[in-house]
């Protein structure tokens, strides 16, 4: 006997055990990884679960993700249907079916009713899928936020914090600019009221089929290495404003040339005619092998587009209640609760705020702010005056959260009645504070605004972040705010990047006031504007502050700004507070040498 003979026998025996040897497409370790990720995805509906994806013998983008799921969760006993564009004879479907059947040794079918697994690209079958069936959808782009955010890290953050205001703004912009949502397939959905999900590029027609479905849907993106799922009986809702109806694809009067169906997803063919995209359904209709009544109920007829309903979407108007809401002083004043249960006077209290920049090569240690303390009450404006480098902007940035303080406390009446130090919050909680509690107007409007979207859209961002979901209410509120800050309403839908500096600043002010914050921080609000424009903005701010029970901190190097807006002020120099007093007193009767120099400069 020889080693060759031993090897031959081994191979012969192995072949005999397995009457038709199957190609290995994926190693067992890879399959386990996919199953683990699928389970995690089912446990957290709509959440993208990253997984270690293996390369498949089909190109990334040809369904390598879907293939991995089907191979990992499927087995010999399964019956698999593979479709592409609704057609099991599409070139992609043919090849995937060949691979899956070859690798799993399972049965194949064209009949949705017989299938245990349906792997699909771009369609959900017209026939209703049932309990126990699994739909595997191939996904070419898994990140629904990609359209509005290019940074993967930032997208992660937005999902973690359920911070989806920018997707709503994108919707708002489409409605305001075009009068309709232009997203075709892959319409973003909210799963289980929590996660924003890209439903794979299924047509809008199929979106309602994901909602409270009986079957399990697993979506997999091989290239992005993400799996996510919609378990049975999970709510799935398209991202749409409460008062603007969702629309599916439908051409009035269209019907399938072959089977005559009018309530299926139809694709155009030569000659201006239409055919069912789902060839199985089309064939079964022709053979009268369908439950037409059930299907009619399943078809999303309530979402057929109605052009007439869109007519009001682009009009601009301010409702009287919205206008009034802006002139009667905003909401109630808000002050903190003291340790003994009594109301304190302040809305914002800063104690011992210190910021030290450690030294490094080329820079020595800098104490940018040392032990700065103050508080501000409703209807009160406090000024912080100082030259650039005095530390005033550092104090502001630490309060906002753009910078981390080295020591100290910041308390807000709007946060746990002032009992919580803002510095103890994590970054996500601090970002939330800025939606409705603590508003900022930056010197540079591009810090507070998205220059690529409209004035109305910028305000919509703040409102949607605060939970507003009615398009017309958002639009009216935005218009009222813009009217109040004297931005011409016919520019409401123009991109802010095309606005003048003064106009941008007005939009930023409108956005800051959109949710009636209780504390407003103004960081050099008129610096960088032409003198006459600055005067107008300053005047507007003075009016707005007079109207509101809001606590305001104004940071500026310009004494005239602080004089115009505040009653009290602090003078900062080299990180220290050198003098405090009534603002007009500081100007008329400055005591410190530094303050006297500032005043002399302002008078000259």
């Amino acid at each position, binding site marked *: *006997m*020889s*080693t*060759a003979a*031993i*090897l031959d026998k*081994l191979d012969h025996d*192995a072949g005999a055990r397995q009457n038709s040897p199957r190609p290995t497409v994926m190693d067992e370790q890879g399959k386990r990884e996919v199953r683990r990720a699928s389970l995690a995805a089912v446990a957290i509906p709509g959440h993208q679960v990253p997984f270690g994806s293996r390369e498949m013998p089909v190109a990334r983008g040809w369904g390598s993700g879907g293939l991995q799921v089907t191979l990992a969760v499927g087995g010999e006993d399964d019956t698999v249907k593979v479709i592409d564009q609704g057609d099991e004879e599409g070139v992609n479907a043919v090849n995937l079916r060949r691979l899956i059947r070859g690798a799993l040794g399972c049965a194949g079918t064209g009949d949705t009713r017989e299938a245990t697994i349906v792997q699909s690209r771009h369609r959900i079958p017209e026939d209703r899928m049932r309990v126990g069936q699994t739909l595997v959808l191939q996904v070419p782009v898994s990140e629904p936020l990609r359209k509005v955010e290019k940074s993967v890290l930032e997208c992660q953050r937005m999902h973690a914090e359920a911070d989806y205001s920018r997707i709503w703004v994108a919707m708002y912009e489409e409605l305001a600019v075009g009068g309709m949502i232009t997203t075709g397939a892959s319409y973003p959905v909210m799963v289980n009221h929590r996660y924003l999900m890209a439903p794979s590029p299924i047509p809008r027609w199929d979106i309602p089929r994901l909602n409270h479905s009986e079957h399990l849907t697993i979506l997999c993106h091989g290239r992005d290495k993400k799996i996510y799922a919609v378990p049975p009986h999970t709510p799935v809702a398209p991202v749409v404003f409460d008062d603007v109806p969702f629309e599916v694809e439908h051409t009035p009067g269209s019907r399938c040339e072959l089977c005559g169906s009018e309530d299926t997803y139809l694709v155009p063919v030569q000659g201006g005619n239409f055919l069912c995209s789902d060839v199985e359904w089309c064939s079964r209709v022709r053979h009268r092998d369908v439950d037409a009544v059930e299907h009619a109920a399943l078809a999303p007829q309530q979402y057929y587009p109605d052009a007439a309903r869109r007519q009001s979407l682009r009009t601009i108007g301010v409702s009287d209640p919205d206008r009034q809401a802006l002139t009667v002083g905003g909401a109630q004043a808000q002050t903190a609760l003291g340790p003994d249960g009594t109301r304190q006077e302040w809305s914002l209290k800063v104690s011992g705020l210190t910021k030290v920049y450690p030294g490094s090569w080329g820079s020595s240690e800098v104490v940018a702010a040392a032990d700065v303390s103050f508080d501000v009450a409703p209807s009160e404006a406090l000024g912080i005056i100082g030259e650039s480098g005095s530390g005033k902007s550092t104090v502001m940035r630490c309060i906002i959260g753009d910078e981390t303080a080295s020591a100290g406390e910041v308390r807000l009446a709007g946060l746990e009645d002032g009992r919580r130090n803002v510095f103890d919050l994590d970054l996500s909680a601090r970002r939330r504070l800025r939606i409705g509690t603590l508003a900022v107007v930056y010197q540079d409007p591009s810090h507070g605004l998205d220059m690529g979207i409209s004035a109305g859209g910028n305000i919509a961002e703040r409102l949607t972040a605060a939970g507003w979901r009615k398009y017309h209410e958002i639009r009216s509120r935005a218009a009222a705010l813009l009217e109040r800050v004297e931005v011409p309403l016919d520019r409401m839908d123009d991109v802010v990047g095309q606005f003048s500096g003064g106009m941008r600043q007005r939009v930023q002010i409108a956005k800051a006031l959109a949710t009636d914050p209780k504390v407003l921080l103004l960081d050099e609000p008129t610096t960088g504007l032409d003198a006459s424009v600055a005067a107008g903005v300053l005047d507007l701010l003075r009016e707005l502050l007079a109207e509101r029970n809001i606590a305001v901190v104004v940071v500026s190097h310009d004494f005239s700004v602080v004089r115009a807006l505040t009653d009290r002020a602090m003078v900062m120099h080299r990180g220290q507070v050198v003098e405090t007093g009534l603002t007009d007193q500081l100007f008329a009767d400055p005591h410190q040498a530094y303050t006297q120099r500032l005043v002399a400069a302002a008078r000259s």
Partner: protein
Amino acid sequence: MTHGENIAEGLALAESQAVIEVADRIVAGAESDGVVVHVVKPPETGIVVAQIREPLAQKRFILADVQTVQAEVEIAGVRGWSMRMGSDRHAAMASAVCEAEYFRNGPHRGQVQDLAAKTLRAREQKRAQQWRSLVPTIVEFEEVLERS
């Protein structure tokens, strides 16, 4: 050549044909002696993950997978294992047979030792030859030339 590892190394690096020849003699001898050759793990191709300890921070990273083939046999109750680069299943099984023969002190133990030693020696010679051909491509600066 006393350590098993050097035997395994020599076998892993040996020419396929040479190791099969020795293994065939071992199998034939075992058969005539009535000793059972049992294949514990049929030869299978797989991968070894090549990890590098990069020299700047001494941290590891994965460079690539290396295709290898592995087998394990048992001769008279003594196991022999082999892993070789590539996908030559026959050679892998033959290497495992050789190793088992070595460990069980079988009659062909000496042949296995010789094969391993010859392989490692050949490798050194090959490198020495390569180096001789490389030396002329060394850039000689003038000061080096003058000093010598």
